[in-house]
């Protein structure tokens, strides 16, 4: 892939990822990741200090599947949805089919009564691999700018 196609491919991957979460098709969310993967939600302060633990941690696609089934069947939270606003990706590097990218995001949370807040902002730090014609995340580290999470974080970022 040349530079322009990489940019377009990653932007499209991000757009599809956001669409799946924001339109409540969470069952498709794990499919964006390779079977052995790393997905973390952390904060800028934790990330800068190299703190290892996360608000959400998964090192397999199975753990992402479990997140979704827990949200669907076990966890209790008030009805809410997200709207992701994604910036254009920055391609940090590419080697063969593998890429590293960084993408800024903002997530608006809409509660059932209409209360709408800027729930999270931050950046995705991604390692992306090509599997046939599809791009997948081998690693997606969600670095939230703020150390504070309002109420709870149920739906993934």
């Amino acid at each position: 892939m040349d530079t322009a196609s990489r940019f377009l491919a990653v932007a499209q991957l991000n757009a599809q990822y956001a669409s799946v979460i924001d339109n409540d098709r969470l069952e498709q969310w794990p499919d964006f990741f390779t079977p052995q993967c790393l997905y973390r939600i952390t904060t800028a302060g934790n990330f800068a200090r190299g703190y290892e633990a996360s608000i959400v941690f998964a090192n397999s696609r199975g753990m992402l599947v479990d997140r979704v089934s827990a949200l669907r069947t076990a966890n209790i939270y008030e009805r809410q949805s997200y709207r992701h606003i994604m910036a254009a990706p920055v391609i940090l590097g590419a080697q063969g089919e593998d890429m590293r990218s960084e993408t800024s995001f903002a997530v608006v949370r809409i509660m059932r009564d209409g209360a709408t807040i800027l729930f999270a902002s931050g950046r995705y730090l991604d390692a992306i691999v090509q599997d046939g014609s599809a791009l997948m995340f081998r690693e997606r580290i969600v670095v939230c700018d703020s150390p504070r999470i309002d109420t709870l974080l149920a739906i993934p970022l």
Partner: protein
Amino acid sequence: MPDEIATSAAQAALPSWPEGLTRIPYWVFQRDDIYVREQAHVFRGPVWHYLCLETDVPDEGSFRTSFIGDAPVIVTRGAGGKLHAFENRCAHRGALICLDDEGKAKQGFSCVYHAWSYDLEGNLNGVAFMRGMKGKGGGMPPDFKMSDHGPRKLRVAVIHGLVFGTFSAQASSLEEFLGDEICARIARVLEGRKPVVLARYTQALPNNWKLYIENVKDSYHASILHLFFTTFELNRLNYTGGVIVEGDGGHHVSFNQLDRSKVDEAYSKQNIRSESDYKLADPSLLHGFEEFPDGVTLQILTVFPTFVLQQIQNSIAVRQIVPRGPGHSDLHWTILGFEDDTPDQRLVRLKQANLVGPAGYISMEDGCVGGFVQRGVAGAPDHSAILEMGGRDAVSSESRVTEGGLRGFWKRYRALMGI
């Protein structure tokens, strides 16, 4: 007009508290005057409050900022390795002295507003232009003494790596405040071990701080609100447990312990009853390691009023609740490992951190349920919650289906508040 407002505020007496320990009037989660009184009687009262980990201030000059109720506090390590804590409030005009969460301040602190400076013990040791400008006069009056002024200092004490502080000269020693049982229960998690911070984050709760600490002490709700373990059939049958109520009711421990005599029987029962459709795709989340020889797999410990030490399997954390007005609070999580963790053990802790925090499989609900109460009781200040599960007193219990820990909290709280 201001006089009238002050008078009417003073005259507005608190409603009377219902008889006994089993009714909690909802006004206690709502009223501004209660909030103000709590700051004086509970947070600045004869009570010890968790401030930080001892490892947060490792060297001479290290500091970490914290809170006791509304009051911002600085914890430092001074000469000879001694720990100090004092208000993060300049003696001059009240500005914050320190604007960082943590760091090194070998030379002490200097207020950014007018450069009044403090040593690591919180002593005022410099006032900019104290003697005025050369030849131009000004300066402080000649009888102004720096030693007469300073932020309030706290008494500081450490137990198994946890730093506590109190504004009160009347408070008993920390050990006496905690009591033997609580000291022993802290020891079984932390004694002789060097904790490593694995993460810190803050959960902003849409509710009064007391609704969160009630929730932590409420072992009755655990298997009802938190369905993760039940749904995925991860509950084990071969457990005993109970609730310990200590410290004039204010502290509590809730625990589950493996009953080794029932292990075989229980395992066979588990095989029989696995009819659920729900299975974890990656059950490694719960493949822990044997960390505690006593077989306790869950221990939730609270120290009155706002400290929580958590052991859920191999997930260890301390939680500190900071009130933010009557209807809001901040829950500060510090997720811990230990210096001698093997890489495999550390990975277990990273995975099990999924159980707790704002996205925790078994704790996310606690972030919203306090808000459900706060909103639910908005129009019912004169009505009361019912706390009769497990009896009407505040005593330890072999059953975890009890509200004894909550009744204990309110007993201690009311004694301090004089209500």
